[in-house]
């Protein structure tokens, strides 16, 4: 329902900790906020290459989680429409200019028999 808004057009940038990689801002494709334990995956494909989940973290309102921490996090939420920071590592620093950014969010919605979530893909320009 909000798939087209998953990848934010603003905020795509290099990491600020000096390591190679970047940060893309993402929103959850759902009409309510959700406890993080029900966020099953936030998968990133950068320029056609899948980024291993272990090389990503998700930050909601200042709290950072590795993907394998999400499942047991029942005391924090990704709020409706909230811009979370999906940080990722790459082998080489990101080249300036445009990148192809695809994000798939998988959610466990209790009233649905099949996985919820959605996917989005945009061309983003790295902030200089």
């Amino acid at each position, binding site marked *: 329902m909000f798939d087209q808004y998953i990848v934010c057009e603003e905020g795509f940038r290099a990491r600020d900790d000096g390591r190679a990689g970047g940060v893309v801002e993402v929103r959850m494709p759902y*009409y309510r*906020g959700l406890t993080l*334990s*029900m966020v099953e995956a936030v998968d990133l494909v950068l320029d056609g290459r899948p980024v291993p989940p272990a090389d990503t973290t998700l930050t909601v309102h200042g709290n950072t989680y590795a993907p394998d921490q999400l499942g*047991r996090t029942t005391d924090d*939420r990704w709020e409706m*429409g*909230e811009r979370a920071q999906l940080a990722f590592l790459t082998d080489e620093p990101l080249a300036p200019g445009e990148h192809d950014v695809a994000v798939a969010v998988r959610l466990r919605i*209790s*009233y649905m028999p099949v996985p919820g979530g959605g996917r989005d893909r945009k061309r983003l320009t790295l902030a200089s």
Partner: protein
Amino acid sequence: MTTHTVRRGVSLYSYQEEFFLRTMSLEDCIRAAADCGALGIEVIPEQSIPGYPHLTDEFVDTWHGWMQRYGTHTAATDLFLDTKRHPDRWLTLEEQVASIRQDVDIAVRLGARIVRAIINTSPEVMAAAAPYAEEAGVRLLLEVHAPFHYEHPWILQHLEVMYRTGSPALGLMPDMGTYVRRFPRVVSERALRDGAKPELVDLVVRTYDEHGDTHALMDVVHYRGGGPADFGLARQATHYIWSEPKAMLDHMPLIGHVQAKFYEMTDEGVEYSIPYDEIVPVLVDGGFDGHLSSEYEGNRHVQDAFPVDSVEQVRRQHAMFARLLGEQDPVLPGAGQTTTGTGSI
């Protein structure tokens, strides 16, 4: 029109597009509802209140301040039941009841006397949660949401609990998405934009509109070479239902709130798919004493190609309700004084 006790309201779900994109604040949503004379506010705490389930006293004070400022009141809150909260196990019955109790407490703080219980809430959980809700002075109303109806076993099991316990805290909340007479064109047009085959879209829409057998539609669409967009549309056709609105009359004592789902209010001021001119008289004749609460859900079907204007869509629905309810001072087209960052459709 005889005198009636139907009150108009809006679920803030209706403004989800603008709220998601932060072009409307929570206060903007309440003001927009009040501007069209819909004074009963229905809210999904998990949607509208960051930090849920922890509501600060400051937030609660602010909420009641808005109700006072705009002349509105909290008509209902909507609860969800995350039975699959943990990756490796289902919530126990006790945990499910605890979840409901927590949402009842939130409803009380926000001033709501009605809580929507989501359709996946089991009859056992309703029965176990009823005493707590009754004690709190709150009614737990099971939503009757498409594709369910009053003869469906799932609903019959709930009715059995409601009649057996006789709990005044239990009841029903019909969703008018159970009265989709013709296929929403915003949905079929979106499928075409997403690459569905015109002949398969036509098949799905025609089958639905003739109230034909939709059970095998996904299979037939598959046999005809359909892709994801065609499957999605065929699935939608199995999920919408049409039934006779008069069926609500048999259950009126249990019905405490109505969710007025809609997909498209046309330029002519009618809902394209749902015949509210037949539904509203049923509610009036049945002596329905509660809120007719807007639930706009068309945004997701038009957002790819058109500006979404939920405020205008809700305003149009309330102009229609005011007319159907015989209000003297209807909500006139263009009369809504609202602030929003979106354009008009």
